[in-house]
């Protein structure tokens, strides 16, 4: 599903060069639930952004769902994000001036679905996160946990191959965080690959596989339970 080989990411400003990822190799199988942990500044977000085609890597190779993404045009990358990827952000990133229905509609419009197809998908996605009755509400009228559930619905509506969640529970209290985690587990159970960055050891422990990033490198690979059939990740030498 996702394979990075000897990937590197260097941020260059005129003053400094930051090697955010170095000799970074990882393989994620279809259907996995990967929890990514690591200290602040270790490169977790950089990994997620490159995995999600939000940023380009500076070296090595990255193959996503059978496509080598190096050198793809911006247009093509946008289309892949739209069709294959779902994003969940720490800050929810809902559009404040759109109601829930229109928020979930955003990626579907870029996809070019017709109105009835969009409506069907929006309603079923909102249903799935338990907010169908609130579709005319605006984000500011919801709690943080509810907002994150709308964001999950928005990510789900496009039926992505991979869900990328960068600290999805970072802004939530533990009860809300558990509710969000349960939804993610349900989605994963239905077959969607999930990669989630988290600082919460309890949530990380619930994932099928843990990846630890330190100083831009995958230094520790552990499965929360041994013998998982899909945990065949390749560590850098």
């Amino acid at each position, binding site marked *: 599903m996702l394979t990075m080989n000897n990937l590197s990411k260097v941020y260059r400003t005129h003053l400094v060069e930051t090697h955010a990822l170095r000799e970074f190799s990882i393989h994620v199988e279809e259907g996995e639930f990967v929890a990514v942990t690591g200290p602040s500044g270790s490169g977790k977000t950089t990994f*997620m952004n490159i995995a999600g085609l939000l940023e380009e890597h500076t070296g090595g190779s990255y193959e996503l769902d059978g496509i080598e993404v190096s050198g793809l045009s911006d*247009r093509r990358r946008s289309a892949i994000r739209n069709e294959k990827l779902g994003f969940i*952000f*720490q800050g929810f990133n809902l559009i*404040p001036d759109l109601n829930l229905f229109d928020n979930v*509609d955003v*990626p579907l419009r*870029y996809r070019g679905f017709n109105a009835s197809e969009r409506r069907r998908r929006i309603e079923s996605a909102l249903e799935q996160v338990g907010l169908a009755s609130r579709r005319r509400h605006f984000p500011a009228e919801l709690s943080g946990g509810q907002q994150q559930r709308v964001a999950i619905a928005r990510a789900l509506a496009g039926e992505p191959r991979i869900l990328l969640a960068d600290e999805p529970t970072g802004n939530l209290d533990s009860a809300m965080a558990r509710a969000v985690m349960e939804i993610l587990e349900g989605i994963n159970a239905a077959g969607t690959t999930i990669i989630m960055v988290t600082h919460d050891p309890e949530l990380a422990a619930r994932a099928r596989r843990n990846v630890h990033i330190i100083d831009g490198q995958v230094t520790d690979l552990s499965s929360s339970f041994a013998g998982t059939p899909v945990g065949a990740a390749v560590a850098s030498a």
Partner: protein
Amino acid sequence: MEIRPILSTVLRNPVGLILIGLQVALTLAIVVNALYIIDERLANLRIEAGVDEEHILTLNSAGFASDFETTLATIHRDLDYLRKRPGVVSAMATNTLPLTQSGWSTEVEAQEALDGRSIDTAIYFADETLVETLGLDLIAGRAFREAEVEPYSMDQELRSTAVIVSAAAALALYPEIDRPEQALGRLVWNGAENDRFSAEIVGIVDGVKAPWKGLSSDIFDHVVYVPKVPVIANFGIYAVRSEPGAFADLLQNIQPELAELDTQRVVMEPNAFPEIRERFLRGDRAMAGMLITVVVLLLLVNILGIVGLVSFWVTQRTRQIGTRRALGATRGNILAYFLVENALISAMGVAVGIVAALALNNWLVSAFGVDRLPWAFLVGGAAGLLVLGIAAACVPALRAAAIPPAIATRSV
């Protein structure tokens, strides 16, 4: 195209809509009316006086002997000199020329009775050389005959046997005729109630203008020439027409030459007709120039307002733009978003602006007698302002399109 969600976003943030909408509306209302007035003024700049403008100059002289006979003799001597001078086509004594802003006017009638049917007309003095001296377009009849021309002093009536009138004056005098030539041989009446006199129309000239524009009457096209040599107190005015190529020489040398003929008077600097015309158009030019400045400034303010507000929105929505990019928007989608948003707001402003433009025009019509605004100006102005608004929004919209998708995760 995501018009409905954009529209609902716009309506949820009415401050921007009201600011830009009102600005567009006001700009449209003022600019369209100003452009229309500018257009009228610029049309004035193309006015033709109906004379050979490029080759005519006037000369004023003062300080003649105060008795009539000596003055008349001086005028004849001056005209003799001018007519014989190389480079001069023709010359005559007159009172004034078209577009000079000063001259004589009177009311004349088509009938003896003073029953209110009359026209305002400019009165010019001319002799048998009128048509050659001014290069007039004589479309019917004849020029004055030498025998018809009489000296005239201020204390006399305007009595004469013959007049030459402009085509427009002929049509205005005799509403029943449909071609000006049909006025030939008819009588034009003038004089006080108990002392009426008439003159026969012997010639019709086309296109010649009065010295000024009437505010309410059509006097600008109404001209009556009387066969008189004006001997007005102690000064005289000559109209001189030069041969092509001799104009500059005449303009430079004619004054000292005439002054030398008689050292007992002052000959003023000659006035070239193109300068007379220039002075006549000064007001129109100034008005057009001022309004053009106003229009340019308004459009500039409008552009800056749109650039400013859209820039503010782009900055304010940086994270939203990054999020949209992350969710699959292409750069083109982001560009289109801001252009559509601006077009919607501008369109609403333009709709209000059309109403405001008509209201402003209504007021101008009743207060200043401006003509009614043609639809073409309104439609053209509305379309122009929409295009300008979209062009202005392009600048910040392109900046929005360049916001990287990583902003979605990097900004909090």
